[in-house]
């Protein structure tokens, strides 16, 4: 075919606040991917997966986007060891559908099954079991990266370790992932045994999350971000472990949100009422029940395009991690700031983290991570700036996969391994072929690494 692989597209982050006009190619096989990269004429290039990063991490205004959605093959699976080799456009949804019925679960997954494995590498995602299982990259045997020189290079903790550390969590700036090897985890069935506990305030929630719970590797707390005063930080703690007994298979029927919701739906009183209901649905004495992995891991996936809930203006998601010692006070401070700003946010999510990630720009660190949706309304800039400041003061960092607002200085202070990342980029992509709106905003390639 002699026709060009490019066409004009307009892409947005999941929060729909960040947009980019780019030229995009959608290769269906590796040879087409290489050909597209070669025909990019020196313009900046970036891979784009399922578009589930909230901000501008996957956007490349005025440059070239390589859509990976059709690079979606499961190349091999070893049913003795659980080792899967796959292309980057494979989604977690596919793994749930194909391999969970055979007793294999992805050991680390983000909160949506529609994310791609390539995106999971690029953001070194974590799940509700970060303390027990670490990050996505902890389960990678190797990755293959199509680098700026047009070569496919294999990288792992042993082989081309600098490329590996720069690529996991490296938000796409080292090249295009062409294949990866991931070790899956054996589970007895399709369900998790989930314990729910209703907790009256932040201290109780933090204690619930940080008390050792070796029998329940999954833990997450949903916090009523609008509750203040005595109730500040009240929430529902979920602890889970693989269930021995499988549940009957249920048809997956996701509902779509066909239109943008008008603003009043998410006004203060509505959200307040919803949060009250959500909190009260758990009996005072707690409850325990088996739940499909799908419903436990991906509660929001039941509504396709749930990001339309926030209307046309979109929303920001703010997620930060704060180190262990500072965590309770820092989270309290962040919740107070959110409360004062009167932002109607649904639920905030609080999780414990146990270890650093393997990537130069991996987000994780031992401590607590807080995530909260913030509708995009006047005043949101000031609020996000204040949250950034508080995170920085507590020695924490903001998650790039969710971010669209962080300052270059804040970024530099939060990611101390940036120099190593820049050194790897200098070696593998000296001319800066791979670029993103986020990299430009945060000046990721500038300075340092002499």
């Amino acid at each position: 075919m002699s026709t060009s692989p490019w066409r004009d597209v307009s892409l947005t982050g999941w929060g729909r606040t960040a947009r980019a006009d780019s030229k995009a190619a959608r290769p269906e096989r590796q040879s087409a991917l290489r050909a597209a990269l070669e025909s990019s004429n020196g313009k900046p290039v970036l891979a784009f997966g399922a578009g589930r990063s909230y901000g501008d991490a996957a956007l490349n205004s005025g440059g070239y986007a390589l859509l990976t959605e059709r690079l979606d093959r499961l190349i091999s699976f070893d049913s003795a060891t659980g080792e899967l080799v796959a292309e980057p456009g494979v989604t977690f949804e596919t793994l749930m559908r194909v391999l969970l019925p055979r007793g294999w679960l992805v050991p680390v997954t983000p909160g949506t099954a529609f994310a791609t494995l390539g995106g999971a590498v690029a953001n070194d995602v974590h799940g509700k079991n970060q303390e027990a299982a670490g990050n996505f990259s902890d389960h990678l045997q190797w990755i293959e990266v199509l680098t700026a020189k047009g070569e496919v290079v294999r990288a792992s903790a042993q082989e081309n370790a600098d490329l590996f550390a720069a690529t996991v969590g490296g938000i796409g700036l080292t090249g295009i992932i062409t294949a990866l090897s991931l070790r899956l985890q054996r589970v007895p069935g399709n369900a998790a045994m989930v314990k729910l506990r209703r907790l009256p305030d932040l201290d109780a929630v933090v204690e619930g999350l940080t008390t050792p719970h070796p029998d329940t590797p999954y833990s997450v707390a949903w916090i009523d971000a609008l509750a203040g005063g005595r109730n500040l930080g009240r929430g529902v703690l979920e602890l889970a472990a693989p269930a021995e007994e499988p549940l009957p298979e249920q048809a997956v029927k996701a509902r779509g949100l066909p239109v943008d919701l008008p603003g009043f739906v998410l006004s203060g009183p509505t959200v307040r009422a919803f949060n009250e209901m959500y909190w009260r649905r758990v009996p005072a004495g707690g409850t325990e029940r088996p739940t499909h992995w799908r419903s436990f891991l991906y509660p929001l996936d039941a509504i396709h395009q749930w990001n339309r809930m926030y209307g046309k203006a979109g929303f920001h998601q703010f997620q930060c991690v704060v180190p262990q010692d500072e965590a309770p006070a820092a989270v309290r401070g962040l919740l107070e700031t959110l409360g004062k700003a009167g932002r109607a946010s649904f639920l905030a999510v609080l999780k414990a983290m146990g270890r650093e990630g393997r990537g130069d720009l991996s987000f994780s660190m031992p401590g607590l991570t807080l995530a909260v949706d913030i509708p995009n309304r006047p005043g949101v800039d000031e609020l996000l700036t204040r949250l950034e400041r508080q995170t920085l003061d507590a020695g924490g960092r903001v998650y790039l996969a969710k971010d669209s607002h962080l300052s270059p200085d804040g970024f530099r202070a939060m990611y101390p391994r940036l120099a190593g990342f820049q050194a790897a980029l200098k070696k593998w992509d000296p001319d800066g072929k791979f670029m993103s709106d986020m990299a430009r905003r945060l000046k990721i390639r500038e300075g340092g690494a002499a």
Partner: protein
Amino acid sequence: MTDVAALPPDPLAREVWVILGASSAVARAFSRGVAPDADLLLCGRDMDDLGRMAGDLRVRHDCRAEAVNFNATDYDSHCGLVERAAAFAGRGRLNLFIAFGDMPEQTEIDNDFALARRTVETNYLGAVSVLSRFAPRLEAQGGGSVVVLGSVAGDRGRLKNYVYGSAKAGLHAYVQGYRARMHRAGVHVMTVKPGFLDTAMTWSLGKLPMAMQPDAFAATIMKHLKAKRDVVYVPWPWLGIMTIIRTVPERVFKRTNI
């Protein structure tokens, strides 16, 4: 090598689909569609890609899937392909999905006979070679299906791709006769004329009206296979569109830029 006609198919053995031109998005979708109930032989030139695809089918559907090198215009090799397919199928019933093709820009073909020749050879002669070589085996098994991807471009010669269109028109006529021959042996032959599909071929044209996703296309073909249809337009509104385009008088049509 086993005499291809010697073994009657075993009705209990799995169906076997031989996919020719297996790297296209449409062939991929069709392969995934039939794989739950069939074994697959993926034929094409991009062996790296076919290897990945064969692996994908094995992992997803626990079927047998193998990749085979196939070049549509290397006619002499096609006899070997039939033997290979027969060996792969064992006593399973063979079915063919013919999806290979080549569509260079007409403006480039206009100035280059070699390109015109390649277009006709790949789209027409290549298919004739494959279909005629597989015919004895299909007749011997007395059943099975053949799907041939034609094109709406073959329904009427157009300024913008008449060499490609003429090759597909030839193919349509060939398949009509082939269908009659196979019908006598109980083999079902279906011509599929795709309209706009959302594939690499149409990507750079921008968003097209009614462009169908490959998996929806594959599902529709499988439905038509069950109904043993002869000629189908997919998506179906193309039947209407092409009926109109075919009936425009030549003296008017030659002035259009359709």
